[in-house]
């Protein structure tokens, strides 16, 4: 199945550079520095351990403290990272405590959550951290006992020498070990000896979450802290006038301040701010383009018909292929703007002081928050601390530092510590969305139904390159043209879970279904044939994907779903490679009493080695629920620069009763682990749309499905098998 992926010192730069956030800190955390071990003497020090400078600490009592540098937003990194360290350390998992590290650019690199990149980036570093500490503990024991280190074994936080019968705990050797010099190289465990990795380990914060402990940014309160909410302008508008008289009259409001085209309301608690903000009268005037969804419909048409697109990929002779085609299939697909809508709305605490600032809150990019604050305040970045709280979801929204910048500015203006809270309406209308895109696909088939030409033109609203030109089926088709064109809009956009691919995959996998049907081929066979062709003769040089791994998930999904075996089940197929992980999905629809019922989605995933099966299942199921929910219901439309949907009454999120059964399978390809926060989402919309077509012959070429006229009389029900 190919060679194992390797992370070395050089390529971490490359990997980090390709992630959604695009941000990395240019310091290699453990590859060049062995972990220094701090010895904790008692519970009191353990409780304060986050102020230590070490990554891994072992106390004489045998407690192991592991710092988790990356922000936790539900991807379970705070459990899976320490599992890897503890595995190589041979620690007793019951004695491991995990502490969220603050921003520390000296100790940690890539201290961010985005691009499903943390695990592939850190896998070797984490192993090295654990293995180095284990080496030192063994060396300390060997020295004390006067025996060769090679004769010493470890297990669950204990050190043994069989010959002499001596044994000690990690705590016994912690002090002596911490004085030894760390080795340059250490040996990793054989993967077959793993005891923690690959077992279901529970979320380390379960108890706190299930008893309502303050964990999230919005839960942060401090004596003397002020509260603020902010009125932001519609996109493309600027403030003409502000009438804050009624706002100021609300009990509990201390100030109203206009800054940067926004108005901040300051008060002593949240509810007065919510009331006061409704009474604020702000008149706006155009400051550039003021757009509505009807403008975007027109812009898409203009861009696709007449726009000068950027050529992203060209193979062979596309014009000739289409001229000589026995059959041409063409279709357009469209996806709307979406809000990220994490359950915890944007918020941040800032305390700006004379020559420093303290920032506390939920961020996917603490380093970007610190940089932004330093620039605003004109002070050195080292003078800014960022404490990362747990994030009540992120989905890419908290890669942006806009809400941190506001908190910094407000704290500076009022010269006091402040927490800026966004209401749900602020959160949905305040910007940085998944961009809206329309795609035009064309496929040329020869007389045997082989796809000999493939064209894709993507038109986006602030989407950047809305294509992924090297993704399948590129490499498998002789004549290919991929182009993209983008409209610069004042409506802000941002990476949204599985950026670009979250809608491109749906469009592409639905279109390939159309092509397979036009070619009178089974959709699975059609894809497998293309992949075999890509393997044998990759068009345009090296493939942007591993054809064998894609074939592996396709075959597994087909087998586990009984693809094509039951004539009473209408199945839709979809497969996608994103963020280094391969996922194939099959959606099953069964007719019951004349209505199509979506019963089940079967997923096959190749993410290399699975670290934590529970966490992995969470990400795959969650990604599928997310992908299905937004394909079915998600829609953000605009009128005069403002979203029409402002809260969950109109902006519809998927609920319990709208979720089918989801069966999760993994393909053990022997590769090192890749990320899972995003890759299960992209294939889902296509699998569901293709199953709906199979059951009803209605092709859903736009999202959300429930708002399409083709969908209206289908009466799709969702019920578990």
């Amino acid at each position: 199945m190919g060679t194992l992926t390797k992370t070395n010192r050089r390529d971490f730069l490359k990997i980090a550079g390709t992630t959604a956030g695009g941000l990395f800190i240019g310091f290699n955390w453990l590859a060049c520095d062995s972990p220094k071990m701090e010895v904790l003497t008692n519970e009191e020090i353990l409780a304060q351990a986050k102020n230590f400078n070490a990554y891994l600490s072992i106390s004489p009592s045998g407690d192991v403290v592991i710092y988790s540098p990356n922000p936790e937003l539900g991807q379970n990194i705070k459990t899976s990272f320490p599992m890897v360290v503890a595995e190589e350390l041979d620690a007793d998992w019951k004695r491991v405590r995990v502490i969220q590290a603050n921003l520390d650019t000296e100790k940690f690199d890539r201290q961010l959550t985005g691009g499903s990149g943390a695990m592939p980036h850190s896998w070797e570093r984490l192993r090295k951290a654990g293995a180095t500490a284990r080496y030192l503990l063994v060396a300390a024991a060997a020295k004390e006992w006067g025996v060769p280190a090679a004769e010493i074994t470890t297990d669950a936080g204990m050190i043994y020498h069989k010959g002499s019968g001596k044994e000690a705990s990690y705590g016994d050797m912690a002090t002596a070990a911490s004085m030894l010099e760390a080795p340059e190289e250490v040996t990793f465990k054989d993967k077959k000896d793993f005891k923690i990795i690959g077992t279901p380990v529970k979320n380390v914060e379960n108890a706190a979450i299930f008893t309502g402990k303050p964990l999230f940014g919005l839960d942060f309160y401090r004596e003397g802290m002020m509260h603020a909410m902010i009125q932001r302008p519609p996109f493309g508008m600027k403030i003409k006038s502000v009438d804050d008289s009624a706002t100021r009259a609300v009990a509990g409001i201390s100030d109203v301040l206009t800054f940067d085209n926004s108005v901040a309301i300051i008060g002593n608690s949240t509810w007065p701010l919510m009331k006061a903000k409704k009474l604020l009268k702000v008149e706006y005037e155009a400051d550039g383009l003021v757009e509505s969804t009807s403008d975007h419909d027109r812009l898409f048409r203009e861009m696709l018909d007449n726009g000068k697109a950027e050529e992203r990929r060209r193979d062979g002779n596309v014009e000739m292929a289409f001229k000589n085609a026995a059959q041409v299939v063409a279709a357009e697909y469209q996806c709307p703007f979406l809000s990220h809508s994490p359950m915890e709305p944007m918020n941040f605490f800032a305390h700006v002081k004379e020559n420093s600032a303290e920032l506390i809150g939920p961020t996917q990019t603490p380093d970007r928050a610190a940089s932004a604050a330093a620039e605003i305040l004109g002070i050195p970045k080292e003078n800014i601390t960022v404490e990362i709280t747990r994030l009540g979801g992120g989905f890419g929204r908290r890669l942006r530092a806009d809400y941190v910048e506001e908190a910094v500015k407000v704290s500076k203006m009022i010269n006091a510590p402040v927490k800026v809270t966004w209401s749900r309406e602020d959160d949905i209308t305040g910007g940085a969305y998944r961009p809206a895109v329309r795609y035009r696909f064309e496929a040329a088939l020869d007389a045997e139904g082989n796809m000999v030409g493939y064209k894709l033109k993507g038109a986006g609203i602030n989407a950047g390159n809305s294509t992924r030109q090297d993704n399948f089926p590129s490499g498998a088709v002789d004549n290919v043209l991929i182009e993209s064109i983008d409209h610069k809009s004042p409506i802000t956009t941002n990476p949204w879970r599985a950026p670009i691919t979250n809608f491109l995959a749906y469009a592409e996998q639905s279109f390939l279904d159309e092509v397979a049907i036009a070619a009178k081929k089974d959709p699975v066979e059609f894809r497998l044939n293309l992949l075999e062709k890509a393997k044998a003769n990759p068009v345009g040089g090296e493939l942007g994907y591993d054809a064998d791994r894609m074939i592996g998930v396709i075959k597994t999904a087909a087998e586990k779903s009984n693809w094509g075996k039951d004539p009473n089940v209408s199945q839709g197929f979809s497969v996608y490679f994103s963020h280094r992980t391969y996922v194939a999905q099959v959606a099953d629809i069964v007719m019951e009493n004349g209505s199509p019922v979506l019963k089940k989605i079967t997923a096959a995933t190749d993410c290399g080695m699975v670290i934590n099966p529970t966490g992995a299942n969470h990400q795959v199921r969650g990604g599928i629920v997310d992908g299905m929910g937004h394909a079915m219901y998600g829609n953000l439309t605009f009128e005069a620069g403002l979203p029409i949907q402002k809260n969950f009454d109109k902006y519809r999120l998927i609920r319990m009763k709208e979720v089918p059964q989801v069966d999760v399978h993994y393909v053990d390809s022997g590769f090192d682990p890749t990320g899972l926060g995003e890759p299960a989402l992209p294939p889902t919309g296509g699998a569901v749309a293709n199953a709906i077509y199979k059951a009803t012959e209605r092709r859903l070429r736009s999202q959300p499905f429930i708002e399409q006229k083709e969908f209206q009389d289908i009466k799709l029900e969702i019920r578990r098998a």
Partner: protein
Amino acid sequence: MATLNLKINGRTHSVDVEEDTPLLWVLRDHLGLVGTKYSCGIAQCGACTVHLNGEAIFSCSMPVSSLASSDEVTTIEGLSEDGDHPVQKAWEEIDVAQCGYCQAGQIMNAAAFLDKNPSPSMEEIENAMNRNICRCGTYHKIREAVAKAAKI
């Protein structure tokens, strides 16, 4: 401004707030009970679910002045002494949470539901839990955990 006496988690608290202040913000901003979450503010998502005399209610849309001094409010902090309510135990066993933000509301809804219907069918569980949104999509595990809690 009014001085109100509220019975929360078995203790009586006296608070000075505007009468229209939702119970949610009294809990969070005035009493430091931040386990009850704000998310939509319009009774759509269930993150703010607490018990009022044993009934699951949306605290974001309940003006605090509408509570009588005899009314008993229970929040996630008061659901059990040591986090060992059957629903909390089931949530731990099934390892339900992803980001965790909605889970206090989910737990409170499930606990009130199971009090009334100790042996629910899966369909009844789905109907009851449909009022709480989980943006991470932990619905499969929530469903499983409610069924589990019914057996504890």
